[in-house]
């Protein structure tokens, strides 16, 4: 599937500067109830966003429930954002809520890859820069919006204020073009075939598995519970 391309985005930024916000916090596992990439936005930050585990009553203290931040599309986050579980549901939930970019001093690496593959920009910025942006945003979140230009790798903030950011070229290209990674790689099928032919000669045990591959004796579905 093709992600939505990311070129220039302007929006409200919400500061959530806690360190080590993990993907369990971004989307608690109990909020993942179907084999699906959809229906997750409601569960975003559920443990913080709502008053009780199973309620939908907003906790007014939580940043995304506060005046001015409800329509945030950018997160300013603390270090190691998205660490923990590899669940891509965290990214799908962010996307469904409307988040297009996360700026943080560092990220969980699987989370960051997941972002890129879903058209969400995850940019690493210096801690002090994040703080400066957060301070500025907080004075008037609705007016003090950030504009992120991925083509030119700059963030525009206060009048005349721009700051440059770095991003790996491969991630940038994927985001700008909204490429379907599988289709791109399938163009290299012959290289993969050649690799496997050569590799089979060197490491035949990798490719030779005991038969039978599919019919598995003793592999029966669970009987109905007791």
């Amino acid at each position: 599937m093709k992600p939505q391309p990311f070129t220039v985005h302007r929006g409200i930024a919400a500061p959530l500067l806690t360190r080590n916000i993990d993907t369990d916090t971004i989307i608690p596992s109990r909020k993942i109830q179907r084999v699906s990439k959809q229906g997750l936005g409601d569960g975003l930050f559920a443990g913080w966003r709502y008053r009780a585990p199973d309620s939908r009553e907003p906790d007014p203290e939580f940043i995304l429930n506060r005046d001015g931040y409800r329509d945030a599309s950018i997160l300013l986050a603390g270090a190691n954002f998205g660490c923990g579980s590899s669940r891509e549901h965290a990214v799908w939930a962010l996307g469904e809520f409307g988040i297009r970019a996360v700026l943080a001093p560092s990220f969980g690496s699987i989370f960051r890859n997941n972002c890129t593959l879903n058209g969400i920009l995850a940019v690493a910025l210096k801690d002090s820069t994040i703080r400066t942006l957060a301070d500025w945003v907080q004075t008037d979140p609705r007016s003090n919006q950030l504009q992120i230009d991925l083509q030119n790798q700059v963030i525009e903030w206060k009048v005349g204020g721009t700051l440059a950011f770095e991003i790996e070229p491969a991630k940038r290209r994927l985001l700008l073009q909204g490429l379907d990674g599988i289709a791109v790689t399938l163009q290299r099928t012959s290289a993969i075939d050649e690799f496997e032919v050569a590799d089979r000669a060197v490491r035949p045990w990798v490719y030779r598995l005991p038969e039978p591959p599919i019919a598995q004796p003793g592999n029966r579905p669970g009987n109905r519970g007791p």
Partner: protein
Amino acid sequence: MPETLFDKLWSLHRVAEVGQGECLLHLDRIFLHERTGSVALLSLERAGRRIRSPERVFCTMDHIVDTRPGRGDETQVPHGAHFIAATRDSARRAGIRLFDVNDPRQGIGHVIAAELGIVLPGMSVVCPDSHTCTLGALGALAWGIGSTEAEHALATGTLRVSRPRSMRVSFDGRVPAGVTPKDLIIHLISCFGSQAATGHAVEFAGPAIEAMPVEGRATLCNMAVEMGAFTGLVAPDERTVRYVRGREYAPTGALWEQAAEHWSALHSDSDALFDRELQIDCAAVAPSVTWGTNPEQAVPIGGRVPHPDSFADSHRASAAARALQYMDLAPGTPTDTIRVDAAFIGSCTNSRLSDLRAAAGYLKGRRIAPWIRALCVPGSSSVKRAAEAEGLDEVFRRAGFEWREAGCSLCFHAGGESFGGQRVISSTNRNFQGRQGPGARTHLGSPLTVAASACRGYICAAEPTE
């Protein structure tokens, strides 16, 4: 040029440089589970794409499956049966190997992939699960991915990866009695932090690792991701070869000889350079426990819960303050005065036979404190059978533990069973907020520490026995 183990593994699987710093890596094995694998299988199918090499793709039921005795598809996880049925159906249609709910080989993916010889030294393996790095214990290049990457892996048999930097952690000195691999890794993470290895492939080396059985190495590699690592690795040696030999999917005969010969070259050259090197003096490590909501927030048992002001870094200080609030702990509390409500032995970190033996060794002839709820969940159905053959199940039961079927169980809360609101001493790998249930307060420690703490009812280390 001298090469690191990681360099060698990388070259072994490099199909092509694809520009912009990325490399197309060949995948020898893909592992899936019903929680995150199901969505990848389904989405691939909807897109009308085929799995390139279904014979090298494996799937297990571990995350959602019930672990209470007599289980079937029904689980306490809301909509859990739906995940299980959907996974089974798509696995069948895709023609991949599935270790279903009551398959004798079922278990936690990272446990059975090693135990069945599905993953072998030098192989590359991915799974949409962050603890895939556990398998680095065999000298395999194993890393966790997301679901979209899993689709890519399934469809193309490869992944595009930016090359991580390299790190070596040397474990020197003598490991004191009573200090387990779990204590070593908790100590390491608490010394260097949860981001110490971000963007790095970490090789664990040194005399303590050479002397460590493969199962202990798995515990170390399992938690490499808790310091941000791309993966953890241990060079395969004679212990590894002994471990792998005779496993169901391991090669035999001439193929085995050829494989073993190949593996013998898989180690870092003596003069290889790493981007970063860390040292741990094992003699200075004590049984350790976490006090906060991240694995880096840990101290030796008997030490005190730190004061947030004691952290020079302001982020760490505020994280500590938040964590203490969630954990309902006052700064300065001696860790061995923390009363626990529950005890959990299990997870891909510490659910193998050696872990169960260590805990049972302590529990023999003892009982847990009367207010404790204690669970032992073997990592795989075959670990369970092996433990039962030794009578360990009886030891756990007599001590007051529940003895479960294999799976992830209460390592994480998915809406079903829960340690909600309780304080848990746990042999798992994550003490995040709500990880084991809404409001659950998790303290991570070794299986031995869990056993001893369950008996005393307060966090404590087992008395070392030489």
